[in-house]
């Protein structure tokens, strides 16, 4: 088997089996599960509509903003927490406590604090993704190799160079955090859109389809959310790949 065939054939076979199972399931419960072809038709129709394009743009923008806030807050805090023994001893337990709280549970709190659906939704997604960034970065910083900074110092490196060495040691952990945060951020944004509603957003559209019992549309929107998540994850992987290449060998 050539490398190309061995790479692409298994997922094609796996995907075909899943579609076949779906088709069989739709035949046995047509009122709950629409056929593959019906969902495919609905998906292509939705992708051509201006409204869904705006929905995708709104959901992706909210996700990227939430992840951006998560990185901005989680990485510096995680770096301090991971590299400072005293800080870790004082607040290390807090990471475990906070990541045990489902971000969704905090939605009422965010609504109370921000008094705006948009801000509350963003706050919830940023909190969920931020905890991941914080924990991931703190782990990377705590398990870094101080010897590499010492090496730079012995060979006369400037403070800036030594800082860059310390940062390079943390980047693979940050990259892992970014990939998880992007997926989690999207999940929380869509949940926020379903619960709180919005003018545009894939979650809002899924909710509309459910209210109108338009199952083809609802399934098609679910497929689109999945594709958006897959694309965002791929983007995060491509952007962070350079940092992760040596991450397994730290």
């Amino acid at each position: 088997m050539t490398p190309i065939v061995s790479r692409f054939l298994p997922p094609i076979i796996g995907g075909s089996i899943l579609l076949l199972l779906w088709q069989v399931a739709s035949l046995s419960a047509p009122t709950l599960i629409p056929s593959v072809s019906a969902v495919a038709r609905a998906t292509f129709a939705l992708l051509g509509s201006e409204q869904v394009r705006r929905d995708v743009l709104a959901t992706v923008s909210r996700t990227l903003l939430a992840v951006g806030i998560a990185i901005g807050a989680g990485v510096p805090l995680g770096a301090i927490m991971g590299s400072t023994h005293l800080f870790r001893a004082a607040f290390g337990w807090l990471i475990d406590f906070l990541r045990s709280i489902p971000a969704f549970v905090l939605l009422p709190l965010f609504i109370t604090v921000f008094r705006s659906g948009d801000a509350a939704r963003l706050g919830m997604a940023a909190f969920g993704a931020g905890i991941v960034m914080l924990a991931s970065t703190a782990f990377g910083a705590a398990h870094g190799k101080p010897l590499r900074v010492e090496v730079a110092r012995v060979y006369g490196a400037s403070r800036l160079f030594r800082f860059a060495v310390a940062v390079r040691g943390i980047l693979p952990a940050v990259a892992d955090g970014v990939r998880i945060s992007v997926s989690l951020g999207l999940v929380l944004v869509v949940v926020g859109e379903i619960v709180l509603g919005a003018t545009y957003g894939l979650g809002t559209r899924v909710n509309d389809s459910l209210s109108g019992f338009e199952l083809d549309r609802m399934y098609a929107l679910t497929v689109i959310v999945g594709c958006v998540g897959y694309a965002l994850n791929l983007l995060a992987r491509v952007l962070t790949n350079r940092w992760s290449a040596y991450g397994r060998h730290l």
Partner: protein
Amino acid sequence: MLVLDRVSFAYPRRQPVLASVSFEVGPGEAVSLIGENGAGKSTLLSLLIGTAVPTAGSISVFGRPPGTAQVGMVWQKAYDSLYPWWDAMNNAALPLKLLGWTRRARRQRVEQLAAELNLDFPLSRMPYELSGGELQKLCVVRALVADPSILIMDEPFANLSLEATNDLMVHLQAAQAKRGLTLLIVSHSLEHSVFLSDTVIRLTPKPVTLTGEEKILVDCPYSRPRPLSWTLEPTFRRNIDRIRMGALNP
């Protein structure tokens, strides 16, 4: 010349590691410090490279305070001292990069030294693609690349196979003889210390006290570079026995 004058050191709120340590290492001299694990060898090295400061006494490395002198250092944990995000060439050229050498000049210098030390792997390899012996040799190249006044090695053979150890010892000796390099090796292997050194200093139990009179001269019938076959001769064994007897009858 490396001069330690009544150097003392204690970690905060702990028993002193070094009480009063004095000894000198002349230009071109090869000296081994031997002692059990936890005897204070690594602490002594930290003081020499300036990553720790003596609580009393003074250190002069070729007329300069530690941390400012041109020192080549090989750490025990070779892999942890290398940057996994750089290939072997960039790792070896680190001191030159910090000295502001151009990329081309760095490459030429590293290639020349790599040939001299018989580095038999492509310099485009990443550290995680190298064996223990190759990593240690790469660290020696990095340590010598900027022509330091003194080469300090912390347990350089601790994690190496017999073949890798012999190979490194032979090439290290050749490089030392060619440059008239001052060598300070910290080891708990008497065999390696005797083979590489002109004198051996046995560290006393903690807190370490040395007056400079503890140097044991290695009696070798060969000039440098010494042949590896010397380790099989009775004169080599006699040196080891003499140092061991000294350890039993301090």
